């Protein structure tokens, strides 16, 4: 069902997009071909796609897991920033360490950074009932400020013309995903994580617990589950995923820390999680699709000479159409919880 809806959404998006392209005096077929071939046509395209897909995928997991409890984590940006910051701080100390130790230390530090940051919002939620949508969103700005302070203050490289950190030692650099590719091996860990979480949530008792807590917190307490502990644990895990994205960006792509290293991966993750209906595996596929769209758009612009704004509008239309058509199950889950007391019995 979902698959059918997504295909229909995509078709609608392409149709609406055609209108945009025609308005911009473009050749519809050529534009779409450039988009597709640019992203998935050759190794070059795939390489670029995987680089972008990794942080989006991890950020989408950070959204998908809390969604299982009908909680919304919009704090991917901030959690990624904190992950990157922690990984950089630790990574800079790893001059002498072996690559295995150095990378492991950065990865763990990044996860902890993201988990701690997400836990602030979770703690406010369980202690004071602060709406997690607001708190996670606002904490993104705080994280951006902290990051800005760090890279222009204590972490700023000596003699740097503008705020960025020193380059990390080689020992912390992630190996390539394939021999000779630019994409780093972190993508494998991200995909592995998505598959594992998919299994855990669909097959495991963990998924059942999440369902019970999301559908009926009172029943959860009655059967010995703690909604509080579930919220804290899930947010910590979600934050760790996003933090991991930040760490990978630093030790796999940028090799140093600067203000804008987060890109907009946190928000892309929200879209991917919605596209994937909060299913980790589906979110992973959606992340690769979104990354493909970004890479393809660049290629499309180069090949057809269409203006940047048209390309961005086209991206927006595609994402919007598919999100609307695919996000129904997620919306329904949240909606169901909101109006549960009023639901009528049959007969």
């Amino acid at each position, binding site marked *: 069902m979902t698959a059918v809806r997504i295909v229909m959404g995509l078709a609608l998006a392409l149709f609406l997009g055609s209108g945009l392209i025609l308005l911009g005096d473009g050749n519809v077929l050529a534009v779409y071909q450039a988009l597709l071939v640019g992203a998935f046509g050759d190794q070059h395209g795939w390489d670029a796609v995987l680089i972008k897909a990794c942080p989006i995928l991890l950020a989408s997991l950070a959204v998908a897991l809390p969604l299982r409890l009908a909680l919304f984590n919009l704090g991917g940006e901030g959690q990624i920033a904190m992950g990157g910051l922690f990984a950089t701080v630790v990574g800079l100390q790893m001059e002498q360490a072996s690559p295995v130790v150095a990378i492991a230390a950065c990865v763990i530090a990044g996860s902890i950074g993201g988990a701690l940051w997400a836990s602030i919002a979770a703690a406010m939620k369980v202690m004071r009932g602060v709406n997690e949508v607001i708190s996670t969103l606002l904490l993104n700005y705080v994280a951006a400020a902290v990051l800005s302070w760090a890279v222009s203050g204590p972490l700023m490289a000596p003699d740097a013309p503008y705020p960025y950190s020193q380059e990390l030692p080689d020992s912390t650099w992630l190996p390539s995903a394939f021999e000779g590719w630019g994409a780093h091996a972190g993508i494998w860990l991200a995909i592995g994580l998505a598959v594992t979480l998919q299994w*855990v949530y669909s*097959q*495991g*008792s*963990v*998924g*059942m*617990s999440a*369902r*019970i807590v999301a*559908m*009926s917190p*009172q*029943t959860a*307490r*009655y*059967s*010995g589950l703690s909604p509080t502990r579930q919220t804290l644990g899930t947010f910590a895990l979600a934050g760790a995923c996003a933090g991991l994205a930040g760490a990978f960006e630093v030790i796999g792509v940028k090799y140093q820390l600067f203000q804008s290293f987060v890109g907009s991966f946190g928000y892309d993750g929200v879209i991917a999680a919605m596209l994937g209906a909060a299913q980790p595996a589906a979110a992973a596929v959606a992340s690769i699709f979104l990354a493909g769209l970004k890479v393809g758009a660049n290629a499309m612009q180069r090949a057809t000479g269409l203006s940047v704004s048209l390309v961005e509008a086209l991206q927006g239309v595609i994402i919007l159409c598919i999100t609307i058509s695919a996000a129904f199950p997620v919306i329904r889950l949240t909606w*169901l919880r909101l109006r*549960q*007391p009023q*639901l009528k*019995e*049959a*007969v």
Partner: protein
Amino acid sequence: MNVLPMIRLEAKDLTVKYGDFLANDRVNLALRAGEVHAVLGENGAGKSTLMNVLIGLQQPSGGHLERDGREVRFAGPQDATTARIGMVHQHSMLVEQLSVVDNVALGLERGLGRVPLKRLSAELSAIADQYGFEVDPWAEVSTLSPGERQRVEILKLLHRQAEVLILDEPTSVLAPQEVRPLLHALRRLADGGRSVVLITHKLAEVAEVADCITVLRAGRVVLQRPMQGADATELAHCMVGSEAQAKPQTEGSEIRVPFGEPVIAYEGVKVAAAAGRAPLEGVDLTVRAGEIVGVAGVDGNGQQALADCLAGLSSVTQGRLALHGQDVRKLSVRVRRQLGLAYIPEDRHHTGLVLDLSVADNLRLHDYRRRPWASLLGRLNRKGILAAGREAMQAHDIRARSASQQARWLSGGNQQKIVLARELTGAARAIVVSQPCKGLDLLSTRAVHDALQAQRRKGAGVLYISTELEHLLDQCDRIAVLSRGRIVGEVHCTGHNRADAHARIGELMAGAK
């Protein structure tokens, strides 16, 4: 001389199908001006479906409605309202945060401009006086008791000049002393020329006010007659059909084993008040093995706190609480269950069950994380859970389409059987039951009581909290009366005869209130 009053609303050969299931099968019903018409039936007999058709919530698959002799078709509830047909639902449909006047004003005026609230409140007060309802038009609904809310709903219908009033199980939310005034008010409404429909499964109430009776069973009208001369036993048999007659009424009068060690002990237990829950002000109560101890009282006197603190859902601020002599105040819900505690909560829908999960999953709420239902890695054994669900459905007569059907779609009685099956299998030695028969019909009520008696025979101690005094008198060895968070007295059921016990409990309830 025998001129029957005018028919206000008539259903002719009304049929409602859900798939191949006939919820209503060629039902005929004539509601006359000036009459109280009681519609009786067990859960799932098709009463709600029939009423939903009358108020336009459900379209019939066959047959039609006539209003004052003319055929009408209701596309939605709005049409029924226009036709001056109104319903008071079992659970209040008012907006809690608004005042009484606001609620009446809702949906009343269309278009721009201010709603004349002052005029409205004066009108409401006038109607209220006429029927002896005491209602403050400016009170916020959330501060009103269920009984008061019900009166507001009736007022709202009267203000809209409804001629046909339908009330769904109106007494189920009322305290015992509120029942009679309501029934009298309904009588007055009918005497004023309105047509009142009373949906219920409580025969005693029907006898008091009804003029006519319609009994539904399995979607069909099995009996339709004037109340005069009707026999309660006949009606009961009509409602439940042949199944119920095979079994004796109760099993309370058998030989009993002597009671054993205390399994549940409250010693000066205090629990703080919480949202919508009255506090406990120091309760001493002991339940021994093989004993059923009842807790009687008007709802809202601490019943919820009494059950919740034992189950581990709310903390004890003072006093001691023990299971088998072991202090459980600091123990988790799970550990308490391991000590043999079973809890059948009052609120099936939001505490006892997860309505969106399947029957099979709901049966495993407490142990799905353990083997054999989950592997060492935590993988759920779905096949095993489903198979166990099917077995339990067989063993406990849970009627559902399949073990994977969502609990939401089952009738109240079958939902409660899921809870019973889950809580009472295994080694339950201390059982807390809160209002287990609320909203249940005779057969389901009997199933609940049979299950409790079976547990008692196996040596469990049962704490039976209920506002249904008759049930307590039937089932319990001893009844404690809870009032304002304290036990104000205990009555031994075995020593007294039933009427004496009843009177004594009534005194205790009244004395402290």
